[in-house]
């Protein structure tokens, strides 16, 4: 039986809202970066570095990384609970799905920590 213990939030509304808001953040980030790159076709490393050392830009990047993390968590969790199920794959599916869910969460957390490390450095 598919459970909800590994769901991002136990509330469907929160998952749903997080999915939408994170999508908006990611879109905004992509638009910003695209526009910025188009406006500065011959961008130098120094310029790029300067941009990414601004606190506001780093917060924006962090927010986007958090959005990617939560968005992926919710999305992949949905896919796994749809397709990697006892109903479709037989009795082993529950174990396989749980392992995949743990991996998925681990990968997401690692990426998040790595992103923070890149942005702020330890």
């Amino acid at each position, binding site marked *: 039986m598919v459970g909800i213990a590994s769901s991002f939030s136990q*509330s469907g509304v929160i998952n749903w809202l997080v999915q939408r808001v994170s999508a908006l953040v990611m879109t905004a980030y992509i638009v910003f970066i695209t526009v910025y790159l188009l406006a500065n076709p011959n961008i130098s490393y120094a310029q790029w570095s300067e941009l990414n050392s601004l606190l506001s830009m780093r917060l924006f990047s962090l927010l986007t990384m958090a959005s990617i993390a939560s968005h992926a968590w919710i999305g992949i969790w949905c896919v796994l609970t749809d397709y990697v199920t006892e109903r479709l794959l037989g009795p082993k599916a529950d174990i396989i799905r749980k392992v995949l869910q743990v991996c998925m969460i681990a990968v997401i957390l690692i990426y998040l920590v790595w992103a923070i490390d890149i942005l702020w450095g330890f």
Partner: protein
Amino acid sequence: MLNVSIYRYNPEVDNEPYMQDFQFDTQGKDLMVLDVLEKLKIEDPSLVFRRSCREGVCGSDGVNISGKNGLACITPLSEAVKGNSLIIRPLPGLPVIRDLVIDMSQFYAQYEKIQPYMINNSPAPAIERLQTPEERAKLDGLYECILCACCSTACPSFWWNPEKFIGPSGLLQAYRFLADSRDTATAERLSKLDDPFSVFRCHGIMNCVQVCPKGLNPTKAIGHIRNMLMRNPT
């Protein structure tokens, strides 16, 4: 002659399901698919399907007709036949009992889960509870559901999680009671819907809207439920 291909499976006889072809003379008439099944059953009484009212209000004869779920009794051949061939299968996603008859227990269980009855514990008046025509109009497009399961069995989310996702039909009924000015259990009903599966497995695919033989719109009802859940955090 029309080629009619029908899904056959009798668990006592067949190891596995198969498609059986029949040649059928429509005599140039635009019959309903149910008429074809009825006439074929005279030739082969072992052919099994459900039917009752034959006018599209009882919801017995939901089947998959040339790839699309619908009621056999109100689907004319002119809509169903493609290239002189009519293919009739049971509704997808639920276990088949025999031929075109499916086991609908999971579908009914989801209906029962949403408490499909009026809850109002205040003492009833001596006459009816009053309701304005505007309040009553909110139930239009909801109460007409005939529980035929065409929508839920066309919904991928219901295929994958029929025991946890309530499905379009059940959710349409859930909103029918949420929208009723006479029902007082709104908070209780909503609290039972705010998990990641019951409502939120709807991804807006809208197969339900496309197949509903009564022209109802479960996706819209689900949207209303989502809005209510957001406005009334549980």
